[in-house]
């Protein structure tokens, strides 16, 4: 299956990070770096644990941690669903 943005996955769906998109603007740079710092790296397993009312944010398990991400944040992470 081709990679899809993490933001498009429904709760309960797991996958493997295929890539983290480069920042589109200088403003996104710290955000993208932080995504990598907290574990969103190619090859890492992720799972969407929950989705808040109103479709965002989503709760994503990565490694041993769970992070809440807004849709635009999660869209930087490309995932191959399993």
């Amino acid at each position, binding site marked *: 299956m081709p990679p899809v943005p993490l933001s498009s996955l429904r709760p309960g769906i797991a996958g493997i990070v295929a890539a983290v998109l480069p920042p589109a603007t200088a403003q996104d740079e710290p955000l993208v770096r932080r995504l990598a*710092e907290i*574990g969103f790296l190619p090859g890492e397993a992720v799972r969407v644990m929950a989705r808040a009312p109103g479709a965002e944010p989503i709760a994503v398990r990565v490694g041993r941690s769970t992070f809440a991400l*807004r849709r635009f944040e999660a869209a930087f992470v490309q995932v191959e669903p399993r």
Partner: protein
Amino acid sequence: MDAAALHLRIALLGNPNCGKTALFNLLTGSRQKVANYAGVTVERKEGSMRTPSGRLVRVLDLPGAYSLNPLSPDEALTRDVVTGLRSDVERPELLVCVTDATNLRLNLRLVLEARRLGVPIVVALNMSDLARRRGIVIDRQALARELGMPVVETVGVHDEGARALVAHLDECIPDRKPEPVDWTAPTLAEVVQTQQQVRRILQAAVREPEVDTRLDDAIDRVVLHPFWGVPILAAILFLMFQAVFSWAQLPMDALEQGVQHAGALLQAAMPDGVLRSLVVDGVVAGVGSVLVFLPQILILFLFILALEDSGYLPRAAFLLDRMMAAAGLSGRSFIPLLSSFACAVPGVMATRSITSWRDRLATIMVAPLMTCSARLPVYALLIGAFVPERQVAGLFNLQGVVLFALYVAGIVSAMAVAWAFKHLRRRDGQSPLLMELPAYRIPRLRSLARGLAERAGIFIRRVGTIILALMVVVWFISSFPAPPAGAPGAAIQYSIAGMLGSALEPLFRPIGFNWQICIALIPGLAAREIAVAALGTVYALSATGDAVADQLGPVIAGRWSLATALSLLAWYVFAPQCISTLAVVRRETNSWRYPLLMAGYLFGLAWVASFLTYRIALAAGA
């Protein structure tokens, strides 16, 4: 031993949620000092301890950080301290990198990043008991070899949990001349490289079984449920407010009686005169009327602390993020705003964890609209005096309904103001949330008790200093100058306060306030709850002859119209007059612009709301 060996300056560095603060408390016990860093309101927690050999260790607890590339003001401060950029903090001679032993994969990255700082480091594997219970086997020697730094096990929540760390602090030879390093943020490629290094080290030194997250996941399925999550949160908050009112009743009655008793005793024991008036009317009546709110504040904080320690608060922020974003805030605003129900000052300070400056500013601006506990005395007095105690719809107590409506009015106005604020300022792109939802933990009694003791201390210090001093001032300006001999009317009308009240009256007459209320509003600037105490003093001193009113409620019920009372309630929903809040906003935003803007908009809203309330109530015949 030479002097250098007798002293050591260390700092605790670690991710949020790694149990760092518990370890700090364990190391330093009660020898702590909580202050702020100069120029920013990031809390500076410092303490000291003595090792078995007599070495004095000064311990600095740094704000939790995921990285030395900061996303929030908290993280920026941590970076500045460890890189030696701050002039008001000496660079630590030794860093204790505190890690959550159950989540080294996330935590070790910061350790590797800190290694580039060139300061000696000792790694503390915190929560090592929990890690062992989960079957995680950490080869300490191998880990120390891979990292090139000593590694000790710690358990922040056990009395003996820091023994290995203390032994290390006893022996280590610190770097005596830590030079400011030339710190440059790593590139994205370097971040990825560091992560690969973390994995390599974990492979060499740590064996972890598949983690069992079934319990956490099950709880999350319930509390984060897309439909039931929000009602569950609402129920928890409802329970909290119920508890604040029902549980606190007994201790509050006891405190009130104690204060009255003390007043009566002093009244009888002291000779009539200026001094007795100062002690009884000023100090005891004034300070006592504020002190009775201690139980409510403690219950509110008990809930906030327990929810915080359990890991639920970030979930609440998760659930509300979308709704709050629509109003121009962020889910991260939830925790500061919840604290603002106790007091806007800690609320404003808690906004420092909000990464986006725009969201942070909006949160700060609306924090004073959350009904703080200092407004409770005013509400309680007015509702008790003017709202009859009867059932509504056969279910609810009318007084309770009015109180609830006042809280809701505050929340709704906050949302409206935040929304207006968002539309008045140009958007600078989407702001990130990126918030960890930590593993659930059962709150520890000891940590709750410590938090409550801290809160009680702050409150009592406030009562004993600023409130006490102001009550003396109120008493003074209400008593002097004395009226000329044979003058008609109450003595207070001739005092400074009486003159001030009369001068302000034209501004407040359209909204139904009399000069007594105007006087009470002045000291209310320093602390809102003083308005009640000041009314007490004003009416006590304006009683002609010896008829000293001991019950303020019936007095104002007899003298004010219902419209005036409702107008004052509306005023207090906005209540612009709180110097401590404005001062903390000034410090937090580092400019006069925002506190002035805040005072202005709150004053305007308060006046308009009171005017409308008063006029509508009059028209309705109240």
